[in-house]
């Protein structure tokens, strides 16, 4: 298509708010607050020349207005070039050619809505509260493994395990297989491309894919309750989607269920170690403080930092003119530090009121697992406060992700505390018991079929 002089002039004008934005650099992580303040002050919607050129929204109002303009945005990842060739939610587009799109997060309505409607009965507040005894039991076992030693790594020994086990249980996948999924899911986020480590992670990923595919086949042949069963039986326009599409949905559930809650828990526990008076306050006033504190940790740490979109029609939103086909990054993390919505945005205020954070995203693609995330986080934190009230994290062994371009997480968070007595069985034995309970009580049924909470006896 020929480009007229007028187009070029208009383009320069449209893109006059420019900012060189590269969220995948260690520098962005280091200077996050400074960059956020500068962008929000000067260009809350900016054009960046990075990654083939894309828009970046950092102001809360701008992110809010854009994210809710579903009629002008597309999440579609058109891998086979069947529609408009859009590239989904990752910026930049992952180097290795992907054959799987990212589930309903890379779909547009109406398809996207059908999927959410199919899965909501497994993830609604009432559905999630049925699982609380299971979450508590797995958390207890994780802490029991370490309680007598006085040492724990909150990432490796707790925050990786509980979300993974619960996610698999809800899916209807054997919980003992959590190790097959754990490392590839987390490592895929923090491993740099083109390193020997990346080759190993890719292999682990393939193994996980094979396992997941095997579970799909097994559950199709012998149905058992859970999200996998929901996914393989959901008909859209009278058809079951192809296996690659189904794998994408299941991978989205796993990706959403694992690394995000792990990141939130690790970063919050580290903060509470650094602020022992606040930790004691939270523990003492938990009845009123735990809910707002959870929202504040979500806001401040924003585990999933943002999402990409494609502009699907020429439009003007939040004072910027966009053209069809342009890419846009919606920064939940930066929106969460906007001083016009959050007074003193770079301070953690556990009792913060009216906390309209964007940490689960905004708009029609808002996180479907938010009720799971909140519940798992709270149950883990409360048990740590009760059983390891004086824990102290060790900065020497603490490892944050080098970059925060995708997930604001941690690889290791070792801590010491005054040892205490064990309360029950270790993790392996507990997972066997949990599996038995899941099977016998059919816990992974949707809430439409099973309403009662899990029962765990002595």
């Amino acid at each position: 298509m020929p480009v007229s002089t007028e187009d070029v002039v208009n383009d320069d004008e449209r893109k006059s708010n420019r900012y060189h934005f590269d969220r995948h650099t260690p520098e962005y992580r280091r200077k996050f607050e400074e960059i956020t303040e500068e962008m929000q002050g000067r260009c809350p919607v900016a054009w960046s020349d990075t990654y083939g050129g894309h828009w970046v929204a950092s102001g809360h109002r701008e992110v809010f207005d854009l994210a809710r303009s579903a009629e002008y945005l597309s999440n579609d990842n058109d891998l086979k070039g069947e529609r408009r060739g859009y590239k989904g939610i990752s910026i930049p587009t992952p180097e290795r050619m992907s054959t799987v799109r990212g589930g309903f997060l890379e779909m547009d309505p109406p398809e996207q809505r059908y999927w959410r409607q199919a899965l909501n009965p497994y993830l609604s507040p009432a559905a999630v509260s049925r699982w609380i005894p299971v979450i508590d039991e797995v958390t207890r076992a994780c802490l029991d493994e370490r309680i007598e030693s006085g040492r724990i790594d909150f990432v490796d020994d707790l925050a990786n395990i509980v979300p993974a086990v619960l996610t698999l249980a809800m899916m209807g996948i054997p919980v003992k297989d959590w190790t097959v999924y754990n490392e590839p899911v987390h490592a895929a986020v923090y491993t740099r491309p083109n390193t020997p480590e990346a080759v190993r992670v890719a292999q682990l990923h393939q193994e996980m894919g094979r396992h997941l595919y095997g579970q799909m086949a097994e559950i199709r042949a012998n149905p058992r309750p859970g999200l996998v069963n929901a996914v393989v039986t959901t008909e859209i326009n009278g058809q079951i989607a192809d296996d690659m599409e189904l794998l994408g949905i299941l991978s989205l559930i796993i990706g959403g269920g694992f690394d995000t809650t792990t990141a939130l828990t690790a970063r919050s526990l580290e903060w509470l170690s650094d602020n022992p008076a606040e930790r004691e306050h939270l523990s003492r006033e938990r009845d009123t403080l735990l809910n707002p504190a959870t929202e504040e940790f979500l806001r401040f740490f924003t585990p999933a930092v943002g999402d990409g979109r494609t502009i699907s029609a020429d439009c003007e939103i939040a004072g910027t003119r966009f053209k069809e086909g342009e890419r846009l990054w919606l920064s939940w993390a930066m929106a969460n530090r906007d001083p016009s919505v959050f007074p003193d945005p770079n301070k953690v205020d556990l009792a913060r009121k009216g906390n309209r954070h964007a940490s689960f995203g905004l708009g029609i693609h808002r996180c479907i697992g938010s009720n799971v995330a909140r519940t798992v986080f709270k149950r883990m934190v409360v048990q740590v406060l009760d059983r390891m009230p004086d824990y102290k994290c060790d900065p020497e062994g603490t490892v944050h992700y080098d970059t925060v371009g995708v997930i604001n997480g941690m690889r290791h968070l070792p801590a010491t505390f005054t040892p205490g007595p064990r309360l029950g069985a270790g993790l392996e034995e507990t997972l066997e018991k949990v599996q038995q309970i899941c099977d016998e009580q059919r816990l992974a049924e949707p809430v439409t079929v099973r309403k009662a909470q899990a029962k765990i006896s002595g």
Partner: protein
Amino acid sequence: MKVRVDSERCQGHTLCAMIAPEVFRLREIDGHSEVIDEEVPAGQETQVIEAVNSCPERAISTID
């Protein structure tokens, strides 16, 4: 003030019930919202407007 939830648009994000629990309740099945009473109780107007502005699906509307 009256308030309504468009049940076709609601997708169970649950924000309204967190903001104004005395006005909205969630259906057990899918977390979809419904109003407890169309008539907004006195003193709840601010929360209801906050809920309208927060709804990801723009499914909540008010009539003065």
